[in-house]
């Protein structure tokens, strides 16, 4: 099945309805992100990937967990929140679809199910658009992602120039595409090959990192890091959170919010001990988690090659250079 690019906007306008929220890549006050599609929204399908990753659709930066208070008899009451809604994200890219594979592993497997994530995930439909061209900082092809494929998307739209190949990949996707009938037609076209100028070789890197815990590379790298939260907050796979509360006398809200392993306060223990006291330990942790620990635990890289941290780090600390440097070590 194919969808012509002329039919893209008419289709999108048809998808928005009261029963679910539709998110598209767009510019909001100069920041590119996935935002709720309404009448005035101008989707931006030209930009390769958004500055803000789509992870907040499943894992909001701040998420209420429960409200608590004390009733007239002095006993505690707890009200749980479930703010999940049916959501459709249209135009998510293959690197970001892969990031959802990583998040699913963290939040849904190994005997731990995060209910908030599970509820949101259940209600999310993903329409992925493949990439015909890459940004300067994209290197997903080096991280085992095909820029025109995303097996976990409900619907895959492969960019073939003037048209998209429409591929329903899940039962949810089949229901979705069935409703697109007025906008799609029969046919299959050869997808455009996406050229990426940035490439790294992960050959041997995971194993090498195993023996590199005390290697001088971490000092050289971390010395220029600011320990800000830019790379972790913009990373589609970073998923650390903190739980805190907003209290007013006898009632309050417990919420969770994104946290970052780059912050000194992240590993601070009650009593004042900090097992990752300096930049070196924090930077090492971030890259080890991306390129080694996650691989060991879940059998995949926690870096999907989206290039956001490469693009936005204020000191140009570049994960692709680290990968090259590790690969070059004899």
């Amino acid at each position, binding site marked *: 099945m194919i969808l012509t690019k002329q039919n893209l906007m008419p289709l999108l306008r048809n998808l928005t309805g009261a029963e679910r929220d539709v998110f598209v890549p767009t510019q909001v006050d100069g920041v590119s992100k996935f935002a709720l599609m309404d009448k005035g929204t101008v989707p931006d399908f030209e930009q390769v990937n958004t500055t803000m990753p789509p992870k907040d659709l499943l894992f909001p930066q701040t998420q209420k967990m429960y409200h608590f208070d004390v009733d007239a008899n002095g006993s505690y009451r707890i009200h749980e929140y479930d703010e999940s809604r049916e959501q459709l994200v249209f135009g998510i890219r293959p690197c970001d679809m892969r990031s959802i594979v990583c998040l699913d592993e963290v939040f849904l497997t190994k005997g731990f199910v995060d209910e908030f994530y599970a509820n949101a995930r259940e209600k999310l439909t993903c329409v992925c658009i493949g990439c015909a061209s890459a940004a300067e900082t994209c290197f997903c092809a080096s991280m085992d992602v095909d820029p025109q494929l995303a097996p976990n998307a409900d619907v895959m739209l492969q960019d073939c120039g003037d048209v998209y190949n429409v591929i329903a990949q899940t039962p949810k996707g089949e229901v979705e595409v069935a409703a697109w009938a007025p906008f799609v037609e029969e046919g299959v076209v050869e997808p455009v090959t996406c050229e990426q100028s940035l490439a790294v070789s992960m050959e041997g890197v995971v194993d090498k990192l195993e023996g590199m815990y005390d290697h001088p590379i971490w000092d050289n790298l971390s010395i*220029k890091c600011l*320990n*800000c939260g830019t790379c972790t907050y913009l990373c589609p796979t970073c998923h650390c959170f903190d739980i805190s509360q907003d209290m007013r006398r006898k009632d309050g809200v417990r919420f969770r*919010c994104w946290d970052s392993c780059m912050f000194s306060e992240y590993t601070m223990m009650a009593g004042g001990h900090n097992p990752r006291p300096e930049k070196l330990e924090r930077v090492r942790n971030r890259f080890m988690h991306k390129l080694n620990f996650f691989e060991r635990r879940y059998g995949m890289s926690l870096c999907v090659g989206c290039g956001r941290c490469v693009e936005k780090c204020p000191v140009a600390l*570049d994960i692709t250079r680290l990968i090259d440097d590790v690969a070059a070590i004899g």
Partner: protein
Amino acid sequence: MTAQDTIRARARELLENGEVTTFIGWESGRFENQTTPLVITDASDADKLVCNEYCVNTLAKYARDVVTRGKVGMVVRGCDSRGIVRLINDQVINREDVYLIGVGCAGVRDRKTGELLKKCAECRHGDPVICDEMAGDAAGRPQPSERFKEVHEVELMTQPERSRYFEGVYAKCIRCYACRDVCPCCTCRECFVDQRRENWVGKQNNVAENRFYSLTRVMHIADRCIECGECERACPMGLPLMKLNRKVIKDLNDLFGEFESSMTLDEEPGKLITYDLVDCEEFM
């Protein structure tokens, strides 16, 4: 000999002679016209140093982290040198902890567009205010005519317009704290945002908490801000942070007379930490 050649040669000498333990400058990044900060300890790495019109990072703050390893050599332009003055005057480092190689700066360009960076278009001091030696000549760039142009624009808004404008601004902040972490004035051993027990600022991301964080920081660096513009450049969400810094600086100028922070090692103590009987108290 270009300034870059001089910097490489001098960095090599300083490291070889043991006059400094580390040297801070820039090196090329992976992409065209990209640079990234470089800290070296080995004289044989001196040839990695670059100095060109794409050296976007202000280096001063690194001196704070690196002085623990011994004396630091570094390249300073106007902004870097004022950051160093700030660190010294705030007693974060000592003058003798650093050996400064000055270089005149005509402004830094965006590596993709080739345009002068906003912070550099607004910069009033391209040449170092202190250094131990110069590599090449001062640039002697003319100062931009209007220091508070952006502040005037905000002041012209009506109150409801202003409030809407800043709501929009703070809705974008992701609280990554890059603005704090890059700032040469933000050198508190423990930042108020990290004091979890006191919980001055909640961890939830919303306009109220984001604004509280940002305005508290603005007031905390008010009379020390060197106007390097690094906070605004580093912000991944493009918040117009210099509007706030300059608003406070403008108010301080109006209340206490015109000043620029961090121009000399013997500057007067900050306007907001000193008390004078003639201080204006317009609200009493």
